[in-house]
């Protein structure tokens, strides 16, 4: 089906529940406030933040970002497959998303363990307070994401379920977790 035909056929409808979008936008504002405080603190004590930041391994951050972007790709593909009625491939993509998420979690915990072991803990200095706080609260969102993926899989499995709106809603949440990480990664790992 061509792009244009798809849009015309579906009309322009909100992807998923508008309620989830309200949540996404609100939560983004809250995170933006967190980021604002971080950047403000950072700008006030650049040396401290720079030296602490040098303890981070940028490559691990890049790997994590790529993995999470892949998970967004797979869940987006899942939504499109579900919409076309191809629930088999959709289900496979949902599991793939979960797999990417597990990889992300594993790498994250490995990174945290390594940093703590080197003596950079939650209360070591301001930078690491922000680091563990932001990655920690993101981690919580990711864990909630697993519940959301569970709902998604449950929808795709049962022939009586398969509410496309709910599938899109779950995907919307997942993408939020992804783009929040994109911002966190840029601010914690790359910003100088």
């Amino acid at each position, binding site marked *: 089906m*061509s792009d244009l035909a798809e849009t015309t056929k579906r009309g322009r*409808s909100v992807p998923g529940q508008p309620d989830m979008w309200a949540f996404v936008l609100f939560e983004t504002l809250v995170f933006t406030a967190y980021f604002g405080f971080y950047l403000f603190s950072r700008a006030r004590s*650049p040396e401290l933040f720079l030296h602490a930041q040098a303890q981070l391994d940028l490559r691990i951050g890049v790997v994590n970002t790529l993995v999470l*972007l892949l998970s967004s*790709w797979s869940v987006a593909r899942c939504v499109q497959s579900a919409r076309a009625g191809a629930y088999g491939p959709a289900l496979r993509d949902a599991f793939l998303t979960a797999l990417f998420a597990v990889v992300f979690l594993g790498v994250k915990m490995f990174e945290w363990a390594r940093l703590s072991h080197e003596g950079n803990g939650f209360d070591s200095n301001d930078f690491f307070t922000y680091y563990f706080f932001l990655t920690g609260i993101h981690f919580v969102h990711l864990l909630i994401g697993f519940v959301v993926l569970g709902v998604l899989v449950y929808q795709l499995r049962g022939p009586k379920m398969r509410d496309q709106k709910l599938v899109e809603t779950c995907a919307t949440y997942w993408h939020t977790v*992804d783009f929040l990480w994109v911002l966190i990664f840029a601010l914690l790992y790359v910003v100088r």
Partner: protein
Amino acid sequence: MKFNKRLLVVWVILASLTLAYLWIDHTANGSLRSRALITSSVIVIALVKVRIIFREFMEVRQAPVLLCRLTDAWVVLIGAVLLSCYFIGVAIR
């Protein structure tokens, strides 16, 4: 399916922007200096990625115009807040 290819292309673009950070890091390295230019461009690149995620992955491109406007406004808002917090912090150092 045409859609799948589009999604893959989108991912490749996002991945390239992510890898671009490695290049930025490489050029900035050696000197542990904080530079407003690097910070600003890193933030802007991140926001570009966020907008791409909104429009392509989250299907805002095919959503009602209100949602398109709203998400664009959000990207601008985030940018404004982040950059102003940073530069205000620099100013009152």
